[in-house]
């Protein structure tokens, strides 16, 4: 029997369809660019959620993985013009390995210790970016990277297809036994161990997968902007956390929606200049206090609840 689609799923699918149709219906290149960047943010947020939302380990240095993908691309591009079909697999492998390498020693750590360790990794990388300016371009960053594709519309489709595939894979991982195991580890590490789960393996693997998607998205953003620099990589650590918390943790899709919505919002707030960041961090604080489960998780629940609401049950009875 085919499973009936729930209303939130339907809405998400409808939204995705609209994005696919958007360049056909409109030739607003500005909005197309905004959407493409927002889609990259959605992937960043979804990949953060797989590690931190599922296992409850707050990664304060997600930018480190994005930086691995982006700077690998920037570095190679200085020597020869690397195309996306080559750079994406390299980024995937490299950032996966980097994720495992960081994950192995740090995942024994809990709460604040883990937060500091990841913050330290990202901060060390940021400082190294500035001091090793021969390789990284320092504050100016690296230019001259091959564009994703020839024109803006096809670049948008490239990013869109990548984002849909990546988020879908992450979502399936989250729904699979693997994701459920991660949630079990979050609720009680010792109990999970007692059930015979090698919790460390699962956590390290989650770290690797999370890093891999972040690294690939980092590479694609490098291709998209044709530029890699500290200003577009390192502030991401915090922004991603904001997006995931506002969207909702532990379900991939709410976090991805949070990434997309807030990225779009911050673009719309650009006219406010310096107010932009202020509003942004203000939203974060208010969300944590008033809607700690996340905006999109709560919207999803509203639909669920209405399915069982008495009015609807009665109306179903009447139909019979």
């Amino acid at each position, binding site marked *: 029997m085919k499973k009936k689609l729930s209303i939130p799923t339907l809405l998400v699918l409808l939204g995705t369809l609209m994005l696919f149709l958007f360049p056909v219906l409109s030739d607003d290149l500005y909005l197309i660019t905004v959407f493409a960047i927002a889609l990259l943010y959605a992937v960043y947020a979804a990949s953060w959620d797989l590690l931190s939302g599922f296992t409850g380990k*707050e990664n304060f240095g997600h930018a480190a993985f994005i930086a691995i993908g982006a700077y690998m691309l920037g570095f190679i591009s200085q020597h020869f013009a690397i195309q996306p079909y080559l750079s994406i697999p390299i980024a995937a492998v490299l950032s996966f390995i980097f994720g495992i390498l960081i994950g192995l*020693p*740090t995942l*024994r750590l809990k709460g*604040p210790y883990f*937060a500091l360790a990841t913050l330290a990794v990202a901060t*060390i990388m940021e*400082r190294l970016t500035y*001091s090793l300016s021969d390789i990284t371009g320092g504050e100016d960053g690296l230019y001259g990277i091959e564009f994703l594709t020839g024109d803006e519309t096809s670049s948008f489709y490239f990013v869109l297809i990548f984002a849909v595939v990546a988020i879908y894979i992450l979502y399936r991982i989250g729904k699979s036994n693997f994701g459920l195991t991660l949630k079990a580890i979050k609720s009680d590490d010792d109990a999970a161990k007692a059930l015979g789960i090698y919790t460390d393996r699962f956590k390290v693997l989650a770290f690797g997968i999370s890093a891999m998607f972040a690294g690939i998205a980092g590479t694609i953003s490098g291709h998209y902007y044709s530029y890699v620099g500290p200003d577009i990589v390192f502030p991401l650590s915090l922004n991603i956390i904001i997006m995931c918390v506002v969207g909702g943790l532990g379900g991939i899709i709410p976090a991805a929606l949070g990434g997309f919505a807030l990225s779009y919002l911050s673009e719309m707030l650009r006219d406010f200049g310096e107010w932009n960041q202020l509003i942004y961090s203000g939203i974060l604080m208010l969300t944590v206090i008033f809607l700690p489960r996340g905006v999109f998780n709560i919207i999803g629940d509203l639909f669920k609840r209405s399915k069982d609401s008495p009015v609807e049950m009665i109306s179903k009875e009447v139909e019979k």
Partner: protein
Amino acid sequence: MGVILLLQSLLINGTINSSIYALIALGFSLTFGVAGIVNLYHGAYYMVAAYLTYVLSSAGVPLWLSAVFALLLVMGLGGVMMKYPLLYLKKKGESIYLLIFTLGGAYFTQYLLKMIFGARFYSIPPFMDNSVSIGSEIVPGSRVFAFIVSVITIVVVMLFIGKTSIGKKITATSQDVYAAELVGINTNLIFVVTAAISALLAGIAGVVISPYLSISPTMWLSTLIKAFAIVIFGGLGSLGGSIIAAFIMGYLETFISLTWTSSMTEVAFLVVVFIFLIFKPSGLMGKKTL
């Protein structure tokens, strides 16, 4: 640079830097030890105190008085932060929300100050004009003043916690919140008092360094990272461990900036702590095992 001169410079500057770090780390450790909250807003207290002193003193209030007002305001801010949002979030039990809320709050403060004051650097006049010569090294008065104030503050706070009745209540709460409530201690009040003391310690550090380091909207972040690193290095919640760790890291940092480059001090700092976290996550003197 001769070895003796290097050692002398290391000893003097290292001790001054370390004492400031100890002051900041002590407050951070206190909040964690007593309330179990990792307050990433701690660096912002340091920054807010410096800005308030600058604003008041440039408005014509005498420097000493403006520093005192600034510190009182920061104490109040610390207490209010703890009383409303932090205790509310703590009751919900998810540490991630506390970390995110306090970090978000710190960024909020940064952007707010940047909007009001711009990205410019400010500084306030020194509290002590005359410089002091120790050996062949001439140390500016403001740095000597910073050292003296921080040592006195640390001693006073340690005595306050060890000897007074409020201090004993703080210790009792840090050992067991539930048991402390059973013997009639208003633990929520103790949390608020502790947060105010923590904010005061960070604020004092912010005020005494601002004559010789610049005041800017981003000054909180590296301070926070250093305090966080020191406290974890020393063992979360252990006050003595934080002070020892602050001195180790202060000397290390000064050594690197004297012999190599000052831009890499933070990296060295974090690498040491990162390695330490991997091999001994409970820190130098932490009792809690992970």
